[in-house]
């Protein structure tokens, strides 16, 4: 079984860009399941439902859950096991970096993101995580690069714990931008399939929270031309 696991960020950026319904079309083309964890559900459905500003968006996401396009992780992995694994990941991930000066651990990820990593560890099958957050992506793919990045951002010297980093460095991750590129290539967007449409989609996702640079967007556009 294949699992495409969604963090809250991509669901939010897709919804705010008016692209959430594309997931329904992508799902028809996918031999596996689209997953959200209960922690992510709280961020994308339960909390915004109580806020009139985002209630409509939360109903749109709930609708995908009702239709079975998105499924809850608890259908595949026991919730208690997931919670225990999440705790372990949070401890490890948030011990990767600490300040050199007073050994203060730098909190890099939160519960929602950690549950996605935990599900990837526990699910019986192949998985890819859709995560727009740069810190989580670097932590999962190249934690050694986080040290320099965070030192620059925090203006303070940090120590890198390679032992903890090795445990987190094993995930396959994409962003909402790559997922929508795939939808574009598969002609699932009901829009003209030209470079301007792709440009509009990628920048809309960027302006709605996806951690992607203009340089990376241009790189994606160049790939289309090849």
């Amino acid at each position: 079984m294949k699992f495409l696991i969604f963090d809250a960020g991509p669901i939010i950026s897709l919804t705010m860009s008016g692209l959430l319904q594309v997931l329904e079309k992508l799902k028809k083309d996918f031999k596996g399941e689209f997953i959200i964890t209960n922690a992510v559900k709280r961020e994308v459905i339960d909390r915004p439902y109580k806020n009139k500003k985002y209630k409509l968006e939360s109903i749109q996401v709930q609708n995908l859950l009702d239709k079975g396009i998105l499924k809850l992780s608890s259908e595949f992995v026991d919730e208690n096991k997931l919670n225990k694994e999440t705790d372990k990941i949070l401890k490890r991930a948030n011990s990767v970096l600490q300040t050199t000066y007073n050994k203060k651990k730098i909190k890099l990820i939160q519960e929602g993101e950690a549950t996605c990593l935990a599900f990837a560890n526990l699910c019986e099958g192949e998985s890819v995580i859709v995560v727009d957050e740069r810190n989580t992506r670097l932590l999962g793919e190249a934690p050694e690069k986080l040290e320099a990045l965070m030192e620059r951002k925090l203006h303070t010297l940090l120590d890198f714990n390679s032992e903890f980093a090795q445990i987190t460095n094993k995930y396959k991750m994409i962003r909402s931008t790559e997922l929508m590129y795939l939808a574009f290539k598969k002609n699932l967007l009901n829009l003209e399939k030209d470079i301007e449409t792709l440009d509009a989609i990628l920048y809309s996702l960027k302006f709605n929270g996806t951690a992607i640079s203009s340089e990376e967007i241009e790189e994606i556009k160049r790939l289309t031309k090849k």
Partner: protein
Amino acid sequence: MNEKEFGSFEEIQDMSNISRILKESKQAILVKDWMKLKNLSNQTIHSATIHQDPVNIVIAVLVYSFSKVLQRESYQRMKEWDLFYKYILENWDLMINASQKNKKQELLNYAGEIRNYLNNMTGNLGEYIKDIFRKAEINKAFKLYEHGISSAQTAELLGISLWDLASYIGQSNIYETHVNNKISEKQRIKLIEDFFK
């Protein structure tokens, strides 16, 4: 249960910094020096990124909000102003006292009381100030995020919605900074194309 008055060396050092910020802010509020308040708020947000604790963040939001309130001189001519100003100065003193005794929770409680007071303010001044605070929270959230704190962590620290934060993050140019990713765009796209086969 009595609150612990002595923490680790770094906690005491941090509280001493908060105490300094509060005292200097009080002086700035008295002379209505909003620029000084803005600078003090920026100093606090730097500590907040390292410590990621609610005290620094609450103080950063409060100090920044008051810099904005004082910047708008017309507010000071509104009829609710005197009462509001007196309340703030009294509670500011209470916050200073709590910080000097290293009583973190007590300090947070007083800051919370200021927020409750503002939330319950009626009239035009109340509406304007509430709006300033809401924008200050988003502004500080954005600053934290620009300092490398994740969006989820930022949202949690400030008690704001990830949805609110998303559009602000989009306006940031922090992702224009080149990070030598381990996986190229081409590889990432191949990964998802293969996954869908």
